[in-house]
């Protein structure tokens, strides 16, 4: 299934927090077209950091970040990345900020330059696709945890990203919601990186998984 176009490539990434605690110490990995990779590891091992480095939300201390075939270094380089890669945050409360579900889903398309009408249409069809048809006018803040996770996913998918980066998409969800998400992901065509500390779900949703520990990424598994 794996394609030949290299979408993401990290080479020898080092990263430490402001306080000086080292998180990544020479992490490298590649994501190809249509590939689905799982990243697992403990809390604090640097899984989220890797996703944030790909999106340019964090800058590595050293190492090479290549996304969509180009080297990315400055804030400006990442603007293009953010339009084409979709990041699902671990906590939906960090992601959702609009009053209604429909408006939140339309936020990305509006940033991509679509008109208000077009953006609302895209949102509506995306909500339908995820089985959230009647949710448009619901107040985002009042949704349950599982519903918020699904809406977050809708806001990311509405931007029609070429790559999906998913940070703990299953954590804390009841089995029904988790299965719903596995199902939805299975129906998508994008390449994706899924971060989770739960190996069993990772194995359901991805083809191979890597382990992040001691600052490096290792152990490609079939």
């Amino acid at each position, binding site marked *: 299934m794996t394609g030949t176009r290299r979408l993401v490539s990290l080479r020898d990434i080092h990263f430490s927090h402001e306080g000086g605690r080292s998180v990544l110490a020479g992490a490298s990995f590649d994501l190809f077209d249509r590939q689905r990779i799982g990243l697992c590891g403990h809390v604090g091992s640097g899984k989220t950091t890797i996703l944030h480095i790909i*999106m340019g*939300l964090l800058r590595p201390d050293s190492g090479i970040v290549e996304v969509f075939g180009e080297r990315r270094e400055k804030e400006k380089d990442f*603007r293009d990345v*953010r*339009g084409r890669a*979709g*990041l699902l*945050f671990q*906590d939906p*409360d*960090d*992601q959702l*900020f*609009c*009053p209604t579900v429909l*408006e939140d889903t339309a*936020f*990305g398309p*509006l*940033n*991509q330059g679509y008109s208000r009408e077009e953006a609302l249409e895209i949102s509506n069809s995306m909500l339908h696709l995820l089985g959230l048809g009647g949710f448009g006018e619901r107040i985002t*803040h009042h949704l349950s945890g599982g519903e918020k996770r699904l809406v977050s996913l809708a*806001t*990311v998918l509405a*931007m029609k990203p070429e790559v999906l980066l998913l940070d703990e998409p299953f954590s804390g969800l009841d089995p029904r919601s988790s299965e719903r998400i596995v199902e939805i992901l299975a129906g998508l065509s994008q390449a994706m990186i899924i971060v989770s500390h739960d190996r069993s779900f990772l194995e359901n949703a991805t083809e191979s998984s890597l382990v992040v520990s001691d600052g490096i990424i290792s152990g490609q598994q079939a």
Partner: protein
Amino acid sequence: MSCATYYTGDTYIHRLDPRPKVVATLAFSVLAALTSHPGVLVAGLILGAFLVSLARISSDALLKRLLRLNIFMLLLFILVPLTFPGEPLFMVGTLLYSYEGLMWSVIVTLKANAIVLVFAALMGTVDPFVLGHAFHHLKVPEKLTHLFMFTLRYIDVLHHEYMALIRAMKTRGFIPSMRIHTYRSYAYLTGMLIVRSLERSERVMEAMKCRGYDGEFHVVSHFHFEKRDAIFLLITSAVLVILSVAIYTNRGRLW
């Protein structure tokens, strides 16, 4: 929010009891606001610079702030003398640039810089939370002290929540521009932060209740008034008295 105050040092000034520092700052500020005597104000400026150097305040951060203050002062120098009646120094087109206006601007600038320096050296070297405790001991109304402490406590928390949301907005391609979309998005962000902090305030109140809160707030911190504080208070009082006498005896005279 990592605001650049200067309270992390460990100098003579830092070690002083915060209460006399607060009182001295207030007294000095009132005195400086009271006078228009350039000589006295220059003395105040020197005093401020002396205290700042005693506290070894990082000059970079301080200069940045002084710069911001003095940009406004520059505006005064340009505009005020053009409308202030008095002896002309020179003409700008048909307007005259007056000596009295210039002097007025000089005085305001001296005042502002002197007060800011003393404020930075004495108040800026107290941890804001300790300042809250000092307010408590200085009989500032209790509710106001608590409001101050709670506000300070949650600024960082709110700033983190803001950072997380703005980061998510960025990853969804948000770039601020002069569009109604930008205004709306920022407004939603602010609205969301307000909602979340109101909900948090409920939880904080619950946590307080769980620990037996019954309407009374006990402040535990205690300060030790030591010999160095007495010396500080003595010297400051002396300086303030000398300045006051100078102000009184030089009323109406310029130097």
